């Protein structure tokens, strides 16, 4: 059981309303398909300050990543150039509590796709 000031970071946050606006800005209000982009993230973060994620969207020109529960949701936008061998990338991100991470991709035909994953950020601290 861990306790102390650092735990305040795991208090639940409500999804930020700005998320919808950010997505609309990226897509120009276009429809979002379910298929076409894949987001890989751990079920439970080992450390909320450095959560490994991977995005992949074959043929995409760009993939935007948002952390819906962070005080400011934008995380990164990957723009793929002509020499990208695949439209996939990994990085590490900060999550201020259990929340949904969202990836939105602009696909080769100009359409958009979205996938989200819940990542749990826990106090932890017990064990067998």
């Amino acid at each position, binding site marked *: *059981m*861990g306790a102390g000031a650092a735990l305040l970071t795991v*208090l639940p946050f409500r999804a930020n309303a700005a998320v919808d606006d950010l997505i609309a800005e990226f897509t120009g209000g276009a429809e979002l398909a379910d298929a076409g982009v894949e987001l890989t993230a751990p*079920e*439970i973060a*080992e450390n909320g300050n450095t959560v490994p994620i991977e995005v992949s969207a074959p043929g995409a020109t760009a993939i935007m990543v948002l952390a819906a529960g962070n005080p400011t949701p934008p995380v990164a936008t990957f723009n793929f150039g002509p020499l990208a061998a695949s439209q996939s990338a990994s990085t590490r991100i900060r999550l201020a509590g259990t929340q949904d991470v969202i990836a939105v991709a602009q696909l080769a035909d100009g359409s958009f796709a979205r996938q989200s994953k819940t990542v749990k950020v826990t*106090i932890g*601290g*017990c*064990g067998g």
Partner: protein
Amino acid sequence: GNWSRLAAQQALTQDQLLQFETFGNVSLIHITDIHAQMKPIFFREPEINLGVGENKGEVPHVTGADFRRLFGIEDGSPSHYALTYNDFSSLARGYGKVGGLDRVATVVNAIRADRPDAILLDGGDTWHGSYTCLKTQGQDMVNVMNALKPDAMTFHWEFTLGSERVNEIVEGLPFAALGQNIFDAEWDEPAEMFKPYKFFERGGVKVAVIGQAFPYMPIANPGWMFPEYSFGIRDEHMQEMVDEVRGMGAELVVCLSHNGFDVDKKMAGIVKGIDVILSGHTHDALPEPVLVGETIIVASGSNGKFVSRVDLDVRDGRMMGFHHKLIPIFSDVITPDAQVSALIDEQRAPFKTELEEVIGQTDSLLYRRGNFNGSWDDLICDALLSEREADIAMSPGVRWGPSLLPGQDITREDIYNVTSMTYGKAYRSEMTGEFIKVILEDVADNIFNPDPYYQQGGDMVRIGGMAYRIDITKPQGERISDMTLIKSGEVLDPAKNYVVAGWASVNEGTEGPQIWDVVENHIRKEGTIRLEPNTSVEVVGA
């Protein structure tokens, strides 16, 4: 008394315990979660071990009389005493202590006499859990285990020695240190120090043993002590490793796992091609393996109380059948191995006086295992409340720590057996009622989330000074209610601050006296410990 113990010993012989019809062409010997218990101890199995989701009512979430019925165990029998909690104190007086690594050595040697190339595998949680282990930073256990000549090992609490010390020991280990899920945190690549698997050629069979360390190491334990490493379940990588060893000709694939039982069950359904999972971490002891698809899962208990033997018939690159026995280590029945006994005494000699000092006595059975409370934890919470002058006490829901019978002395060694760790400081801080609820909800979800991959394999944080109600079927945030201060009967105010004392914080820089000193001071003042049954947690949905 003596008469009943003699009777029990006469009814039970070493030959009976070791009796085994040798089978097939490969033998595995599994021991796990020893928690540095080199000497015989008492260890009471849990009364409450609730399964959720698909695992509700499934082994290992069956206890007591239901467990005995399921496995055809006679009341009052040695298996009753070894595997269930009922009548523990009286059966313990009859059957005596369990475990002791010198007895384990005798069993291992007997299996090797029968099958000289049997593979001995240690599931981890080995270099943690006692006074001497803490004082020697695991060296006592390394020395004694080396004498048993294991073939491979995986890890959990070992990492709480800090990565520098772990690396130092692992570099000198005369056997394989395995963990396919131990990664270098910086580059996200398999850690060089720990190999994913090891091949053994035994009985003409190519055996691959893949290691799986505890996946939630930096969450359940202080990640700042081993920042270079990342863990996780990594079942995709596990599948790659299984395919790789099969491609290299492995005819038998064994996973030496510290996932915990329900996580192993889920993983066995996802990863194809593992023949045997030797399961550790959740401290379950099962007299029969559990079958998931074509994978058998073996659970071998904890604290040196059991050794599992699994004989396998491997032909034409396939496992065709198995024989299994969970061997209880009755320490009054199994002759200790003289060489290992001497080695154990050698490790303990420098600390003999400190270990043996009697701090008090107990009139109550002191045990830990159970989802919500154990009497050892009640005693620790009492110590925190009085010594740290707190409203509420919190003690971690770990599953290690031997039991003491009513009438026994409490020695300093006994206190360290249930408290020793490298982050044992007893903090004292103010928390709001809301925040205390957040903590309970968070820990409860790590135990009762219906998806095993969200479970960390411990028990509920133990609470002193406060009562609460838990509905284990609800989602996180809705399980805990009716939080009440016991001394005043007052319902906790979400906005009000309460003084909370606890220990084993995973945060760096925690301040306070060591928990074993807090408990020792409390026991000295009390003299004789008498505990009332704890009824402070109301459980719903079990």
